[in-house]
């Protein structure tokens, strides 16, 4: 069973598969250019105290996202 969660709701060590990317236009394009495409797997490495930024591991590299960008990514997370 997997459930859908926003990226900013995950804690370090949790990860999942990208199910949808909410924004359209330039932000969506930028996120996709950075490797965040539907179906790609990522894991949260660490989160700054206020939840901004969030560092994720993706395709073997780490990527830091602003909270408002992380909110736009919906992940399929295995419900443990």
């Amino acid at each position, binding site marked *: 069973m997997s459930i859908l969660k926003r990226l900013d709701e995950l804690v370090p060590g949790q990860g999942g598969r990208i199910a949808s990317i909410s924004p359209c236009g330039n932000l969506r*394009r930028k996120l996709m*250019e950075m490797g965040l495409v539907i179906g790609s797997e990522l894991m949260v490495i660490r989160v700054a105290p206020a939840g901004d930024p969030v560092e994720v591991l993706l*395709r*073997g590299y780490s990527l830091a996202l602003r909270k408002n960008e992380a909110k736009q990514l919906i992940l399929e997370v295995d419900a443990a």
Partner: protein
Amino acid sequence: MIRAALIGNPNVGKTEIFNRLTGLSQKVGNFPGVTVEKKAGMLVHRGREIEVVDLPGAYSLTAHAVDELVASDYIVLERPDVIVDIVDGINLERNLYLTLLLLEMDANLVVALNRWDMVAARGMEIDIEKLSELLGCPVVPTVAITGCGLEDLKDSIVDAAGQKRAKGQGAALNYGDDIEQLINKVEDVIKECTALNGRYPERWLAIKMLEGDERVMEQTRAILSSSQLADILSIIEAEEAAIK
């Protein structure tokens, strides 16, 4: 003189390679119209003079960021003889996105597979011959910080400059039947426009027009005849209506 341009994602060792290629012969200036630094230098290899321009680091080539715009304008409008795409060997998947965009521009490409020492150190293996075959361009392993592989890279630049790549020789990304049909339709209109002939790679231009790239639309509006522009816009409009 061979005109070569270096491009690659940020932090792949591009500037280190540039410094090693050109030594102390660099000149720093600006790209016209924007305050993005332009560094150019000269080297001589096998009796040929090579001018090398270091383009800004970029993940992609859209018209939204000034540095990406500088890079894509330079490639499309200045048409350097050879583009050297510096790729981080330990982040191949991410870096190849830019490589595919460059192939789409019909760039005469040489790929420098940098951090080759790290690839082995991390226990990774990359089949260089296969990669070169898939991309349709030479792939040269390099280690920028030690200068390893740079002589091979210079050889490849001279060789690539000697043989202009035939159109469509590189790997083209297939966008799937429905979009490919659309690309072909727009490309046909573009090919009919003699004023555009040879100024832009046709397939790339067709894709950019379908994306609605503002920069490209602006540049081509003056060149395409109004009926040709209308043709292209109606193709796009019809398809958008069909999708909805």
